[in-house]
């Protein structure tokens, strides 16, 4: 990639990040934009979990593999109120263990 291409990518990525903060930064807590904004994290976090758990690692499509077991174990840990770092370690460890066994 050329320097101009890197700068175009950086500018594009930055515009995405900054727009909401700059346009809605002074909006009232009860405005429509802010109320929609509060509901975006649960929607997008779940989507990210789905994509990184079931997305095929080699291109498009769905996959059911060691990642699903890791996430299921992490979900149980969250339900049992385990601390954040323990949840991450459990998710990674279960996935890694199944990969070693496979």
């Amino acid at each position, binding site marked *: *990639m*050329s*320097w101009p*291409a*890197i700068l*175009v*990518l*950086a500018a*594009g*990525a930055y515009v*995405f*990040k*900054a727009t*909401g*903060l*700059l346009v*809605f*930064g002074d*909006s009232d*807590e009860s405005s429509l*934009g*802010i*109320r*929609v*904004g*509060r*509901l*975006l*994290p*649960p*929607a*997008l*976090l*779940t*989507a990210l*979990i*789905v994509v990184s*758990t*079931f997305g095929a690692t080699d291109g*498009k499509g*769905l996959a059911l593999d*060691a*990642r699903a077991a*890791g*996430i299921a174990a*992490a*979900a149980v840990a*969250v339900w049992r109120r385990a601390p*954040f*770092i323990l*949840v*991450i*370690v*459990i*998710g*990674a460890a*279960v*996935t*890694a*263990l199944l990969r070693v066994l496979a």
Partner: protein
Amino acid sequence: MRKRPAYVRDGIALGAAVSLFAVSFGVLATASGLSVAKTCAMSLLVFTGASQFAAVAVVDAGGSTGAAIGSALLLAARNAAYGLALAPILRGSRLRRAIVAQVIVDESTGMATAQPERADAERAFYATGIALFAFWNIGTLVGALAGTALGDPETLGLDTAFAAGFVALLAPHLRRRGGQVAAVGGGLIALALLPFAPAGVPVIAASLAALPALAVGRRDE
């Protein structure tokens, strides 16, 4: 002395996990033909992990620069949703907001919006955002200079670590009806689009789940 809040420690832990992917990025980027300077500039200026990997993968596969930028921006688009979600949390002058916007990513947004109090949310955002920025850039430099990864992050199960963290950060949102509807809707939209949509689209499209959640969420108040 006041006890350090858990989110500072948690944010640093996420940063440490991110650093291994940053090393991978540095290795892959230089292997695809980027100079060390360009590789590090990408991590400093673009600072969106998934986008950077996508851009380098397209270039490495012989794709055009336009295709590389297009794939990367499709993955970066979700940050627009995060900017909106963080608007009531990151107050302050326009200049300050313009600067802190650079560290808006999945992890900093997730950690901030999981806090019930605004002041904690703001501090959690800074702790996580700054830790990620530091680890991401140091890791990139190490990978670009070393040229070989310290190990495959996937062998350690680290590709699951972030999704596991997101499960923990999702939990507080599920205490409200609106959050429950948004989560289920977002998950279903992503699952439906995953088999055929280009990378990035299933996550942006999940934003639409905020609309039914808004209707249900009124009853929360």
